[in-house]
């Protein structure tokens, strides 16, 4: 058995050591995120800044169809603030009593307004590439948060000899190293309302945390409840072991 185990270990090492194919994306470096781990929680200030980045930059191309404006109260915004944000958008509605479709200002219960009416329109505006919906992006990518952060900060000059297709951009963290999205974030792009320095890294970290929240909005509730459940279960384990020991003591 030991032999087989060491064989398994050897196999694992060999497969890990095989060099990645040239077109395969580099593994994004691992970062610390405040929401990681058993006790991790979201950093609300970062989420608010991240929402600002999404709203002012990413929302021009990427939809977030699974989110409603009212969900934003979880970031610490008041219902009044959420109403104001929602009302900035014109939401298609109808038909009205005359049978006409119309647009009206958004309400907190509305889903996030999508930048394009459909995927074809989104592709047409982006040189044929589809900007993926972002509601679940961090859960739907290998290396989740690390990957998104790395994509945003991973734009570089293409290496000499690299054959970049027209309209694409070099990014070593994207599969195939060429991505249709032009570098979306730059130093100083968003002016934060809370006065935080708007470096590229800061903006990338903030929007990444916002996307993590968007894909798992119940994480804090889940972990909080989980802690109580675990304490209960461990106590339950102890009681059951004691009961069993006592019961079986007399038949040994």
């Amino acid at each position: 058995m030991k032999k087989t185990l060491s064989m398994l270990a050897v196999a694992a090492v060999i497969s890990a050591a095989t060099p990645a194919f040239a077109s395969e994306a580099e593994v994004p470096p691992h970062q610390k995120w405040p929401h990681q781990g058993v006790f991790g929680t979201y950093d609300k200030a970062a989420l608010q800044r991240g929402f600002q980045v999404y709203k002012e930059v990413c929302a021009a191309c990427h939809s977030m169809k699974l989110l409603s404006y009212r969900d934003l109260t979880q970031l610490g915004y008041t219902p009044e603030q959420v109403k104001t944000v929602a009302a900035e958008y014109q939401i298609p509605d109808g038909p009205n009593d005359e049978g006409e479709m119309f647009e009206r200002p958004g309400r907190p219960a509305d889903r996030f307004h999508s930048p394009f009416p459909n995927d074809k329109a989104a592709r047409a505006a982006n040189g044929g590439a589809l900007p993926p919906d972002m509601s679940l992006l961090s859960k739907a990518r290998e290396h989740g948060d690390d990957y998104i952060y790395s994509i945003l900060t991973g734009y570089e000059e293409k290496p000499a000899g690299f054959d970049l297709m027209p309209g694409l951009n070099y990014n070593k963290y994207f599969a195939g190293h060429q991505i249709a999205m032009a570098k979306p974030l730059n130093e100083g792009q968003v002016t934060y309302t809370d006065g935080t320095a708007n470096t590229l890294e800061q903006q990338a970290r903030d929007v990444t945390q916002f996307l993590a929240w968007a894909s798992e909005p119940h994480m804090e509730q889940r972990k909080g409840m989980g802690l109580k459940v675990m304490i209960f279960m461990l106590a339950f384990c102890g009681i059951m072991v004691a009961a069993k020991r006592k019961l079986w003591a007399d038949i040994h």
Partner: protein
Amino acid sequence: MAHFGENKNFSNPVVNWIDNRLPIFTMLIKEYGVFPMPRNVNYMWSFGGIAMTMLGIMILTGIMMAMNYTPHTTLAFDSVERTMRDVNFGWLLRYIHMNGASFFFIAVYIHIARGLFYGSYKKPRELLWMFGVVILLLMMATAFMGYALPWSQMSGWGVTVITSMFSAIPLVGDGLVTWLWGGFSVDNPTLNRFYALHFLLPFVILGVVFIHVWALHVTGSNNPTGVEPKTPADTVPFAPYVSTKDSVALVFFLTIFLGVVFFYPLALTEVDHFRKFDPMQTPAHIVPEWYFLPFYAILRAFTMDITIPFTTVVLLPAKLQGVLAMFGSIILLVFLPWLDRNPVKSGRFRPVFKWCIWLLFVDFFVLMYSGAKPPEGLPLIMGQLGTLYYFVLFLVILPVLSFKEKNLPVPASISADPGCCKKH
């Protein structure tokens, strides 16, 4: 559950009245109260009850998920997400159901491993064992169809890969696949029938589990010595002794399960399960759930067509060999009571069998590793060797050991076994 004999006399008049007309309380006491259990059963004997609990949990959470689910290709994914986001504790329902399937399989695989090691499949428990294999097959079908329901990339492509497998069957293959799909591609009719069947099958499993437990209560449980109880000194009443011991195991198992549900709910899932199914875009790695990986490795272990010698006429294409081997690897378990005819049940007293079975358990993980990797290089070879050992064990080694193995002396009775009644 078999025959009740005469009714007990209950002091509570209402209980007595009911029991005289429908002896349900007499039955409960007989089957779950005084029911004699070998006194030396170890914690491996708790996993049947654990599996049953998981089945209950799956049915309960499944019904509540179904109340919020829409079986349509354009709506399914979003309806599951809506459950997660907008239904009170919907995220908990989904994470319990999603990870519950994995833990159900963990329990059942341990349960089967116990049966293999201690020879629980042998006379007089052959039928009990065979119903167990039926349960395993039904569980696999149920889990496979359940995984399709969120209509994610993994759902759609998993269904495509696995159903296409049937096209390897000569003559009727392609027609069969179209029939399974309900059309010419994996589409809405496929999703609809999978939903109907995924709802139905757990209740079929429940029925088969009932028969399984009924058969168990006719023969009684096996035990680590493999020697049947002979005197009352060999047994203890199920309640409170074994029921309490089972509860210890159950509570520990549920603690680990809930730890995963609350803190690592995505640990056992592929990222592509959170992308909508797109029939035009194949994901980089189509990997089944971990509990299917060993069988997936067997499916892919066959890479050479068998031809008529010196011609190019293909007798048995590689793909068909794989499909036959994969189904064969499970169907073969039905015949296990007749493949292994050694009169000694427990692996404890079979020095060669013991190591062969341990190697089978290791083989299971080797195959699992192989199934998770692209079928090339070392993982492929591991898969092929693993497949070879699996079939050689059941079809050659066990039949040979039936007659050739030098068994160790078996204790005269459970209480005569020196290991039986020490403190633990």
